[in-house]
C-alpha cells in the first residue's frame, strides 16, 4: 500500500503532518480570514477529488462533488470539535456527501455479472497485467454499494479499519465484514469474468 500523505491522495490516520496547519487555518477562517481556507483546499484537494473519483469514476463529477464537500466544510467549520483530527472530520463529511450524492444520482454501473471487460487496447489476445488491474477495479465499481464503499476507503484510499468505520459511520466489525464479503464476491466473480474475456478475445 502506498504511503499516505495529503499530497498523494491517500489518507493516513497516523500521519499528523498537517494537523497543526489545519488547526491554525481553521482558526483564521473562523476569525473571518476567508483566504486562509485556500490553504486547506490546496492541502486536501487531491485526497478529496480522488475519494470522489473512486466513488463515481467520473473526473468532472468528482471535482464537482469535491467542491461541494469543501463548501459544506466551510459552512460547518465551527462544528469541528477538535477531539478528532481535521482530516477525519473532513473525510467523514465528504464520504457522507459522496454517498448521498450517488444515492441521489447513481453513477453509471453495470452489475458485476454483466461486465464487459474488453479493452480496445488489448490486441494480443490475452490480458496484460494492466488490463487485469483495470478489470479488478471495474469489478469493484460494479459491486453493491455497501461493499464498494468499504473497499474504496480501505484499499483505494488507504484508510485503516478504524478510519473507514468512522468515515462510514459504522461499527468496525461491520466494516470488516463488508470488506471480507466484498473480497469474497470479487474472488468468486473475477476468474469467470477474466476467463470470459480471454475467450471473447480469442475468437
Amino acid at each position, binding site marked *: 500500500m502506498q504511503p499516505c500523505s495529503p499530497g498523494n491522495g491517500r489518507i493516513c490516520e497516523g500521519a499528523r503532518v498537517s494537523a497543526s496547519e489545519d488547526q491554525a487555518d481553521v482558526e483564521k477562517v473562523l476569525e473571518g480570514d476567508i483566504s486562509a481556507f485556500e490553504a486547506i483546499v490546496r492541502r486536501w484537494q*487531491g485526497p478529496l*477529488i480522488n475519494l470522489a*473519483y473512486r466513488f463515481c469514476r467520473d473526473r468532472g463529477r468528482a471535482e464537482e462533488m469535491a467542491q461541494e464537500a469543501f463548501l459544506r466544510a466551510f459552512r460547518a467549520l465551527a462544528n469541528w470539535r477538535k477531539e478528532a483530527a481535521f482530516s477525519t472530520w473532513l473525510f467523514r463529511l465528504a464520504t457522507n456527501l459522496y454517498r448521498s450524492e450517488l444515492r441521489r444520482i447513481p453513477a453509471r454501473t453495470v452489475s458485476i455479472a454483466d461486465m464487459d471487460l474488453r479493452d480496445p487496447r488489448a490486441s494480443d489476445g490475452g490480458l496484460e497485467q494492466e488490463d487485469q488491474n483495470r478489470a479488478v477495479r471495474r469489478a*469493484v465499481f460494479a459491486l453493491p454499494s455497501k461493499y464498494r464503499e468499504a*473497499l474504496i476507503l480501505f484499499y483505494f484510499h488507504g484508510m485503516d479499519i478504524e478510519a473507514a468505520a468512522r468515515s462510514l459511520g459504522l461499527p468496525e466489525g461491520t466494516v470488516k465484514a463488508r470488506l471480507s464479503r466484498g*473480497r469474497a464476491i470479487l474472488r468468486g466473480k*473475477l476468474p469467470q469474468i477474466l476467463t470470459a474475456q480471454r475467450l471473447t478475445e480469442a475468437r
Partner: protein
Amino acid sequence: MREDDLEHVLSNEEDLLPSSGFTASVMDAVRRDASLSPSIPFPWKRALPGLIVAGLALMWVFVGIVELALKAGEAQPAPVQPTVLDPILRAMISPQMGWIALVLLSTIAFVRLALRPVSGKS
C-alpha cells in the same frame, strides 16, 4: 487471481491530479457563499405566544369534549343505545363551543402573523 494479487491491485491505483483551476473555483464558491446574508431564522420570539396559546386551546378543547362526553353519559339513562357521535354532536351545539372556536380562530391568526416574515409577505 490470488488474495495477494487482489490486494495489490486494489491498493495501487493511480491518483488523479486536481485540474489547475480547482482551487480558484472552490474559493470563488466559498467567497460567494460567505457574502450571502445568512438565511432568516424562524422567529421563535414572535411565534412562541401563538404556539403556547394554540397548545392551551387544544388542551382546552380536548378537556371540554371529554367533560361533555362524561356529563352526557351520566345524564342519560339511555333507553336507546347512544352512539359514539352523540356526545360530540351535543358538544358542538353547546354554548362553550363558541368560546373554543374563538380561541382556535385567534390561535390561527397568531400563527399566521408569526409566520408572515418567514414567508416573505409584508
